């Protein structure tokens, strides 16, 4: 009944996918153009070095099939991705699924730690004046510490304590992801308007009751916006943490080792795998957001 009214004749799935496809198509076209343009100098140089003549057709063909392109063509990246995802046993060291899983597990652990820490700190800041005045400036300062600089130290310190693998990476991920949650939550928890607070006040609601029944619900829109940023940040943190862990497993290690050996396509495949991962995670949070807000009657 409602669907019929909203559908307006067009297939709803199509309506959702069509814009994405359009934008995607535009990007691919631009990308191909850029690939030709950016790889052309190298192809021309090579031709000059070999003293051969280059037709436009040759130029385009060669720019799109280079082994070490400045910018790989979409089909090269797609092939690299396909090869990495479907072309390997998922337990193989060359499988992007395997590396992706290594990264994902640390990301989720870090995200969980970071979110909990961010929320707890925000609650403290909103409810405790001493914390409000002392924690925030230092939380900000903590984020300006270049993680890539201290990541090795974190890894070293943990390694000397015999802790390797997931936890150090997760800590770095948490370090990056707690901050957006903190900032968003502080704002969100302070969002209820005066009247809503006054009501609570007049009922002499305890701080816990005020928190659970007013501040938390009204902070959710802010929280979800922050969580989306935080999970992407956690992924970045994990990947950063994977660099100094030595070139071992994970998308970060994969990225970097691709970079050592100038394997552009490998870099881009790893990059896309990471981005797909991030996009999926962000979309999951978006779905959670819609679900929650609908259940709360806030989605109108």
């Amino acid at each position, binding site marked *: 009944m409602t669907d019929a009214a909203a559908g307006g004749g067009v297939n709803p799935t199509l309506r959702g996918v069509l814009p994405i496809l359009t934008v995607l198509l535009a990007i691919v076209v631009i990308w191909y153009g850029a690939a030709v343009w950016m790889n052309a100098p190298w192809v021309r140089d090579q031709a000059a070095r070999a003293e051969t003549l280059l037709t436009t057709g040759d130029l385009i063909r060669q720019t799109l099939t280079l082994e070490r392109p400045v910018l790989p063509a979409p089909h090269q990246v797609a092939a690299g991705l396909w090869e990495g995802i479907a072309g390997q046993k998922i337990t193989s060291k060359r499988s992007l699924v395997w590396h992706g899983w290594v990264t994902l597990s640390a990301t989720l652990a870090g995200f969980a730690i970071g979110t909990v820490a961010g929320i707890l700190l925000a609650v403290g800041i909103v409810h405790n004046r001493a914390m409000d005045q002392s924690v925030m400036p230092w939380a900000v300062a903590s984020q300006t510490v270049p993680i890539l600089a201290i990541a090795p130290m974190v890894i070293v310190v943990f390694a000397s304590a015999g802790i390797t693998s997931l936890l150090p990476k997760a800590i770095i991920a948490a370090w990056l992801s707690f901050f957006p949650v903190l900032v968003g939550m502080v704002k969100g928890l302070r969002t209820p308007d005066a*009247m809503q607070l*006054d009501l609570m006040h007049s009922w002499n*609601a305890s701080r816990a009751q005020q928190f659970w029944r007013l501040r938390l619900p009204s902070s959710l829109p802010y929280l979800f916006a922050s969580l989306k940023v935080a999970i992407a940040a956690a992924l970045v943190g994990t990947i950063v943490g994977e660099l100094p862990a030595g070139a071992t497993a994970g998308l970060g290690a994969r990225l970097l080792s691709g970079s050592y050996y100038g394997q552009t396509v490998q870099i881009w495949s790893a990059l896309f795998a990471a981005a797909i991962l991030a996009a999926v995670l962000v979309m999951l949070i978006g779905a959670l957001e819609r679900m929650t807000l609908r259940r709360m009657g*806030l989605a109108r």
Partner: protein
Amino acid sequence: MQVARRSETAIAAKSISLTFPTADGPVHALKDISLAINRGDFVSFIGPSGCGKTTFLRTIAALETPTGGTLSVNGMTPDAARKARAYGYVFQAPGLYPWRTIAGNISLPLEIMGFSRSDRAQRIARVLDLVDLTGFGGKYPWQLSGGMQQRASIARALAFDADILLMDEPFGALDEIVRDRLNEALLDLWKKTGKTIGFVTHSIPEAVYLSTKIVVMSPRPGRITRVIDSPLPRERPLEIRDTPEFIALAQQVREGLREGHSYD
């Protein structure tokens, strides 16, 4: 017994003043307000818009701190009274929580005060019926009309048994008939429970019909210009509004009000 030992004065205000600092100078919202309200009084506040009625009600409920004077409620500070959950407050705007249904909104203070689940359900049903919203418990605030929202917020304040009921223009958005009904219901409740009620209204007949004491205020700065004690009996059928006493009283209030209106 508890009740007997407590002082007869429920609310005692002595030279209360309240100033809001704003960017372009201080606003004197209340000035030198002194008033004694007895336990079980039904006090109406009437006065032109912006004269400080809301501010005074908020001060009583410890939502605003006076910048001068002293105020005691049930022999305690307003804040102590608040902590003792002495207040039920109906704000001028409905102030419903948008993420809770109507029933959820009414349930909220009950949850906070620790009423049992079954008790809550029963009370919700009772007050929803009282304000004629039975059947709307499952709706969200934005699915209701303005008057229905206002009624829901009244129901919320009536659901728990606060000692002192503070109502800021609760019936402003309601039609005459519903208003009459709710007026009767409120009087009934008041008589049965002996609550102390502070009530802001713009309707002179409403003020006269309900109150034992009518406080007329005037603005800039907010002062009390008259305090009129009602000679009407506690038992008040709707028809009392046609009696000469009633009409005389209303006239008295109207005059007080007119005095305060600076621009007349």
